[in-house]
């Protein structure tokens, strides 16, 4: 699946997007965040407080317990601050 990162999540990880193939045990967004945190020190720093993160699956906002299913694109980012 394709992952997208925005704002300080992107900055701390050091990249804006990457392609990953998580193991089957990664079922929902929270699992994915936990699994991604092990990829690098930047991932660990960006993802260490899941409560401060929001997510979208295929460009729709979802709660962190949302199942990944056949998601093609998952985005992880801080709460939005537009307007």
């Amino acid at each position, binding site marked *: 699946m394709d992952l*997208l990162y*925005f*704002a*300080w999540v992107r900055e701390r990880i050091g990249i804006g997007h990457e392609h990953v193939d998580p193991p089957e045990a990664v079922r929902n967004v929270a699992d994915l965040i936990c699994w991604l945190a092990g990829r690098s020190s930047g991932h660990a720093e960006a993802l260490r407080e899941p409560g401060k993160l929001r997510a*979208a699956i295929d*460009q*729709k*906002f979802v709660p962190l317990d949302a199942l990944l299913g056949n998601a093609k694109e998952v*985005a992880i*980012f*801080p*709460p*939005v*601050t*537009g*307007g």
Partner: protein
Amino acid sequence: MIRVSVDTAPIALSQEVAALEERGAGAVATFTGVVRGEGGVTALELEHYPGMTEAVLCDLAEAATERWGLLGVTIVHRVGRMTPGERIVFVGTAAGHRREALDACAYLIDRLKTDAPFWKREQRGDAAAWVEARESDSAAAGRWD
């Protein structure tokens, strides 16, 4: 008619308002957000989620059109780097009467703040900090549920 734009170019306010007036409605309401310079902010950078942003704004415009029977909706959000005093967002609605136009305009800016994937970073001289989401914005958006 719905117009949604997410662009790095400055917002052309008079053109946007004129286009809404040309919809032939009796009432046009608008909201303009301007970059604040308070607290020593020297610049503001806006990041967004291309594709999802435009889809969310179109969904909001369609929901407002249906709820208030609008004749026109325009949402223009600037992204990239801007300085205090510059326009960051414009929301305009055209309706038969003032109440529909005003309520729909307030709904759109309230919901845009919590539903659209934008992120602000404030620059103060050499230092930059991401803006934190505010609880009061969630409360404002919630009153339209």
